[in-house]
């Protein structure tokens, strides 16, 4: 009988564990929001987070965007050769980069680079009692470690997305004009004419949402890590997995919100 019930017990345990994590995360998120509104504010930690999340992510964002834009131009050129390629390629590269690929790829790159780094750093601090030390030094760890990173990510990832969009479009432009023989002026005109304000707005809003998710997941898993090296490893892995899935889910929701009507 016990053997028959074991699979159901396992499902039950995992469901309860998942619900428990969702509850803990909801409380963590609410506490973060509440601390954002109350002093003290740690300006130096905020500026450090801006530098780490924004400036240091620029190379990886730039490389990802330029290759994606170039590949996108080649794909569209190949797939749309029967139509008016001079207008279709720049339009689809622009809309593809700005609406979807730019924000999603930047979000995923930030999740890989920043979320993992935040989770590993905070988890190590927890394992080595640095989080407890912060508390004994009258410093709230959530306010000192989480809030500056969360705000910095919300502000700086949209900028990264904007830069990624521009570099991605430039990648498409470079491939189209250098390799496919497009007229540069026509390419730019077709890009600018086709893009709408809503496209750019959606891109930046997605960037803010993805940045918030990436930072929050890193902080949450770091603060709730288990003991030892294994705990740090699991926190890091869990944070990146959760951030990536949530970013893709949020992308779907935001796309529905902006463009489904």
């Amino acid at each position, binding site marked *: 009988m016990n053997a028959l019930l074991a699979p159901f017990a396992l499902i039950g345990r995992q469901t309860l564990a998942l619900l428990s994590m969702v509850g803990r995360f909801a409380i963590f998120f609410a506490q973060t929001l509440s601390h954002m509104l109350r002093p*003290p504010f*740690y300006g130096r930690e905020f500026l450090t987070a801006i530098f780490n999340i924004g400036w240091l992510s620029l190379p990886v964002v730039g490389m990802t965007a330029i290759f994606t834009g170039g590949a996108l131009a080649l794909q569209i050129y190949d797939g749309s050769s029967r139509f008016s390629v001079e207008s279709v390629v720049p339009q689809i590269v622009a809309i593809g980069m700005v609406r979807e690929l730019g924000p999603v790829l930047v979000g995923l790159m930030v999740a890989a680079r920043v979320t993992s780094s935040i989770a590993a750093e905070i988890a190590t*601090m927890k394992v*080595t*009692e*640095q989080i*407890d*030390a912060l*508390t*004994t*030094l*009258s*410093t709230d760890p959530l306010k000192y470690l989480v809030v500056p990173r969360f705000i910095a990510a919300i502000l700086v990832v949209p900028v990264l997305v904007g830069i990624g969009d521009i570099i991605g479009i430039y990648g498409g432009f470079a491939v189209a004009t250098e390799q496919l023989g497009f007229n540069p002026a026509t390419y730019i005109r077709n890009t600018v004419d086709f893009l709408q304000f809503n496209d750019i707005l959606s891109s930046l809003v997605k960037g803010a949402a993805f940045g918030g998710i990436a930072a929050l997941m890193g902080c949450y898993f770091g603060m709730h890590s288990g003991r030892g090296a294994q705990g740090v490893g699991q926190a890091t892995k869990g944070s990146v997995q959760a951030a990536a899935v949530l970013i893709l889910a949020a992308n779907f929701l935001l796309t529905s919100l902006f463009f489904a009507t």
Partner: protein
Amino acid sequence: MITFDNVHKSFGPKKVLQGVNLKIAKGTSMVIIGGSGTGKSVLLKSVLGLVTPEQGTILVDGKDATMGDHDAFLARFGMLFQGGALFDSMPVWQNVAFRLLRGSLKRPKQEAREIAVEKLRRVGLTPDVADLFPSELSGGMQKRVGLARAIAAEPEIIFFDEPTTGLDPIMSGVINDLIREIVTEMGATAMTITHDMTSVRAIADNVAMLHGGVIQWTGPVAQMDASGDPYLTQFISGSADGPIEAVR
């Protein structure tokens, strides 16, 4: 005075503290001894709110430790962690002056640095250590920096969590002497957790032994050897034979 009154704490099915009663008089140095996993660190951390007991009360100067302004409450404490718990993202002087660079005890940066250098000197470290990062220090130096941080804001109460763990006997002796000197000089109330009987004899005014989730024995350090308590006697002698199971 710190008073533990019937303090209970469990982690899952494991009951760690099962009714701890203990009084630590103001200005005295209490050392808590006991086997690994008996809840010594839990007891210490429950005073600071790092662990929340399920039952019982902890009073500091007659006031419940969980009530009132927690920041002001914590500002009365200094703590030396077992591994130092130094912030590796900042240089030594900023670690020592952490409390003086932010919050209610904030001072101008130059003044905070001067205090940090002075505290480093007090624990036997030269000013050139101030600009190093914790990863550049030996274990003994990290403990000293941790000690300097614990005393930087001149706290009334200082906690030491296994201050000599991982150090060689000579460095352990240096740390023990520093703790004794500093506690006496500052007139602070001290609570130390250790397994090291040499530390107990060097640091303690009073000793309490935690076993089975309760205080098994407590009294002045001078009476420890003649206590007649079989648990304490076995712990002091380090014998595998006695009421404390060797395999736990």
